[in-house]
C-alpha cells in the first residue's frame, strides 16, 4: 500500500509533466535551483568542518531549527500548497491508517523541497568529516530530522484543516503570509547589522534550542563528537519523542478529518448591499469595473497584490535608509510609489486567466471588447493612481523635496497609463496558468511558469519603452534640478499616459472581439 501511494505520487507528477513541455522546463529549472542550493549547503558544511566542534554544533543547531520551523509554519499559512495527495481523497478507500501515514510521509520526499531537505539533512555529516563517529550519527539524525520535518508539516496541515475549510481563514492567511515574506530582506539586513552583538548570544540560543524539539535532533552529532554520550542519548530521546508526538497528532487529526467532511457553514444574508455597483455608472463598462474592484478587495489572489504593492515603497525606504539620509527618502518613497502603481496596473494583464471559466459570462452576454477592456482598466486605475500619487506627495512632503514632485508625478501618471494600455493588449492576447479561483495566491503548479515569465518580462520591457520619455525627463530634472524638466515630465506623463491607455484599450478591444472564444478555450484547459 505504501508503495502504491508512492507510485501514485510519481504518476501524478509524470502526467502533469506530460501535459505541457513548459512544465518540464519549469521543473528542471526548479530542480537546478534546488541542486544549486544543495551544493552550496554541502560545500558550506564541508568548510564548516574545519572549525571546532563547538562552532559546528552551534551553526547546525541554529540552521536546522530554522529549517524545521519553516516546515512547521509554511503549511499553516499557505494552506493547500501541495495537496497532490490530499488525504480527503482517500476517504472512500479503506486504506489502513498506518499504511496511509507511512505512504503520505514518504511521498513528502518526492518533490523538490522534500528531496532537498532530506539530502541536506543527511549531508550535515559532511561537516563532521574530521570525526567519523559523529558523521555516522549525523547521517542517522539527518534522516530522522528530515522525516520529522515532513511529518510536522503534514501534522500542521491536518490540524489546521478544520480551520482551513473555512473560506475566510484561507483567504486571510494567504494574504497575511506575504507581509513577513516581503520584509524578509530588511529583517535579514537588520539581523546582520546586529550580528556583532549576536555572536555572543548565538551559542546560548543554540544551547537552549538543542534542548527543545526544534533543535534536539541536530545537536546529537555534536554531543557525540564531544564524547558526551549521556547528553547525546537525552537529546536523541527528545527528538524521537517529538517525532512520535507529531506523528500521533497527525494520525489523530487525520482520523478525525476522514470522518468529518469539510463543511463551511454560512448564514443567509438578504439583499440590499450592492457595493461598488452603486458607485459606477450602470453600463457594461461600469459593471465590469465594479466587479473588478470587488474582486480586488474580496479575492485573495488580487488582494495579495494590493497588500504587497503599498508596502513595497516602505521596503525600499528600509533598504535605502542604510545608504542615504533623509534627502533620498522623498525620492525613494516616490519611486517606490511608481513601482507600486505599476504592480497594480500590470496585474490586469492576467485578468482573464484569473477569471478562469467565469469569463464565459462576458462571452455569453456579448460584452464588447471596449467595455471589457475599459472596465478592467478603470478598476485598476482607481487603485493605482491614488496609491502612486499618495506616495509621491507624502515623500515630497516628508523630505521637503517639492521641486522634484512634478517629475515623480509624471512618472506615476505615465506608468499607470502606459501600464494599463499594454496590459489591456496583453490580457486579450495571452493567458497564463494563474492560481485558480479559491486557491492560495502563493500556489503555483509545479513549474508551469516559464512561458508566463517570458511574457511578463516582455511586458515589463514594453512598459519601460513606452515610459522612456517620462523617465528621461525625470532623470534630467533630478540631475539638473531644473524644475522645467519636471513639469515637462508631468505633461508628458499625462499626455502619453492618456494616449497609451486609449490606444491600448482600442487595440486590446479589437483583439478581444476577434479572439474571445479562443481566450475562453485557453482558460478552460486549466481548471
Amino acid at each position: 500500500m505504501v508503495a502504491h501511494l508512492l507510485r501514485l505520487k510519481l504518476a501524478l507528477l509524470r502526467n502533469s509533466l506530460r501535459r505541457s513541455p513548459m512544465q518540464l522546463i519549469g521543473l528542471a529549472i526548479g530542480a537546478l535551483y534546488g541542486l544549486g542550493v544543495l551544493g552550496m549547503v554541502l560545500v558550506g558544511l564541508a568548510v564548516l568542518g574545519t572549525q571546532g566542534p563547538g562552532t559546528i554544533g552551534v551553526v547546525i543547531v541554529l540552521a536546522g531549527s530554522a529549517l524545521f520551523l519553516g516546515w512547521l509554519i509554511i503549511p499553516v499559512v499557505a494552506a493547500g500548497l501541495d495537496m497532490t495527495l490530499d488525504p480527503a481523497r482517500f476517504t472512500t478507500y479503506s486504506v489502513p491508517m498506518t499504511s496511509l501515514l507511512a505512504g503520505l510521509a514518504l511521498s513528502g520526499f518526492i518533490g523538490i523541497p522534500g528531496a532537498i531537505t532530506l539530502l541536506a539533512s543527511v549531508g550535515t555529516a559532511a561537516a563532521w568529516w574530521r570525526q567519523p563517529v559523529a558523521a555516522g550519527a549525523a547521517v542517522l539524525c539527518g534522516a530522522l530530522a528530515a522525516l520529522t520535518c515532513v511529518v510536522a508539516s503534514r501534522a500542521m496541515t491536518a490540524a489546521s484543516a478544520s480551520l482551513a475549510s473555512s473560506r475566510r481563514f484561507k483567504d486571510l492567511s494567504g494574504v497575511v503570509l506575504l507581509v513577513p515574506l516581503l520584509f524578509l530582506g530588511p529583517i535579514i539586513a537588520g539581523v546582520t547589522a546586529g550580528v556583532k552583538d549576536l555572536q555572543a548570544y548565538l551559542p546560548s540560543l543554540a544551547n537552549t534550542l538543542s534542548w527543545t524539539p526544534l533543535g534536539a535532533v541536530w545537536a546529537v552529532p555534536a554531543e557525540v563528537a564531544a564524547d558526551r554520550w549521556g547528553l547525546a542519548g537525552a537529546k536523541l530521546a527528545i527528538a524521537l519523542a517529538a517525532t512520535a508526538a507529531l506523528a500521533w497528532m497527525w494520525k489523530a487529526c487525520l482520523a478525525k478529518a476522514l470522518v468529518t467532511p469539510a463543511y463551511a457553514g454560512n448564514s443567509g444574508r438578504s439583499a440590499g448591499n450592492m457595493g461598488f455597483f452603486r458607485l459606477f455608472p450602470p453600463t457594461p463598462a461600469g459593471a465590469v469595473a465594479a466587479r473588478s474592484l470587488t474582486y480586488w478587495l474580496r479575492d485573495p489572489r488580487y488582494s495579495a497584490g494590493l497588500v504587497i504593492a503599498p508596502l513595497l515603497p516602505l521596503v525600499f525606504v528600509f533598504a535605502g535608509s542604510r545608504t542615504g539620509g533623509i534627502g533620498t527618502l522623498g525620492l525613494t518613497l516616490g519611486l517606490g510609489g511608481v513601482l507600486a502603481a505599476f504592480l497594480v496596473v500590470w496585474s490586469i494583464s492576467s485578468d482573464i486567466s484569473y477569471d478562469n471559466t467565469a469569463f464565459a459570462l462576458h462571452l455569453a452576454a456579448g460584452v464588447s471588447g471596449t467595455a471589457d477592456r475599459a472596465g478592467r482598466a478603470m478598476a485598476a486605475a482607481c487603485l493605482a493612481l491614488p496609491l502612486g500619487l499618495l506616495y509621491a506627495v507624502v515623500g515630497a512632503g516628508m523630505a521637503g523635496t517639492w521641486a522634484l514632485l512634478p517629475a515623480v508625478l509624471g512618472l506615476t501618471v505615465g506608468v499607470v497609463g502606459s501600464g494599463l494600455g499594454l496590459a489591456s493588449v496583453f490580457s486579450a492576447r495571452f493567458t497564463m496558468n494563474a492560481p485558480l479561483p479559491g486557491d492560495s495566491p502563493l500556489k503555483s503548479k509545479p513549474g508551469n511558469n516559464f512561458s508566463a515569465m517570458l511574457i511578463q518580462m516582455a511586458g515589463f520591457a514594453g512598459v519601460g519603452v513606452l515610459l522612456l520619455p517620462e523617465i528621461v525627463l525625470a532623470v534630467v530634472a533630478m540631475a539638473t534640478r531644473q524644475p522645467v524638466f519636471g513639469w515637462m515630465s508631468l505633461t508628458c506623463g499625462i499626455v502619453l499616459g492618456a494616449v497609451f491607455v486609449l490606444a491600448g484599450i482600442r487595440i486590446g478591444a479589437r483583439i478581444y472581439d476577434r479572439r474571445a472564444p479562443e481566450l475562453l478555450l485557453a482558460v478552460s484547459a486549466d481548471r
Partner: protein
Amino acid sequence: MTEIAPHLTEPAAAAQRPPALAIRGLVKRFGTKVAVDAINLDVPAGSFYGLVGPNGAGKTTTLSMATGLLRPDAGQVWVHGVEVWGRPLEAKRLMGLLPDGVRLFDRLTGEQLVTYAGLLRGMDKDTVAGRVADLLATLDLAKDAGTLVVDYSAGMTKKIALAAALIHAPRLLVLDEPFESVDPVSAANIRDILHGYVDSGGTVIVSSHVMDLVQRMCGHVAVIAGGNVLAAGTVEQVRGGLSLEDRFVELVGGRNQGTGLAWLRTS
C-alpha cells in the same frame, strides 16, 4: 401551442417562421478526436426541446458552439435567423445561457452576480433591479441574496446561474444540465418557470441524461451520441411507443449482454 408571433428578423422568411435554433454541418475536433461530427438540427420556435445523449456524446460541445462560446471548425448556426458566428452580438441578445461545468464570478453576492449579468447586457439600472428582485424571490434565493456565491450550495449555484441567464428575457433559453444537484422542490419551481416561458412563446433547449425528466417535460427531443444526431423530432415520434429510456438504449447501444458480475450476487 400559443402562437404569439415574435417580430421576424428576416422579411424573406415572413411566410415561415425561422426555427429558434438551426444548426447545419457543425463540426468540432479536439486533436484527433472528432467531438461533433457534422450535426444538423432544427429547434422549432416555441418548443421545449430536450437534448439527450450519453456522457461524452458532444452535447455540451454542440451547445457551446451554438451559443457562441466555442468556435466551430466548420458549419453554421442561426438563432431566429441571425447567424451566431456572423453577427454574434445580435445573436447573443436573443439567447440566455446556463452553461455546465463553468465557474461563476463567485466572489460576488447572488444579488450582485445577477445584476452584473443584466448590466453586462446593457440593460438599464431600474429594469435590472426590478427583475433581480423578482428572480431571487421566484427561485427562493431572496434570503441568501447577500451571501457570496462561493458560499452557496451546488443547487443554489445552479439557480443563481439560471437567474443570470433569464435576466434579459431572452427568446431562446439554452440550459446545459439545469437540474443537476437541484433539490426536487426547486426543480419543480424551475420547471414551472420554464413551462410558463414556453407557453408565452419562448423556446427552451435542455440537455440532460435523465430520460424520465425529458419525456415528461419536453415536447421535442434529439438523441445525440458519438457526435451525431441519431434521432430528432417530437418525443412521440422519437420514442415510437417505447419509453424514451428504452428507445434511447436501443439507439445508442452499449448495454452489456453478458451475465454480468457473477461474483457480486450476495446469495
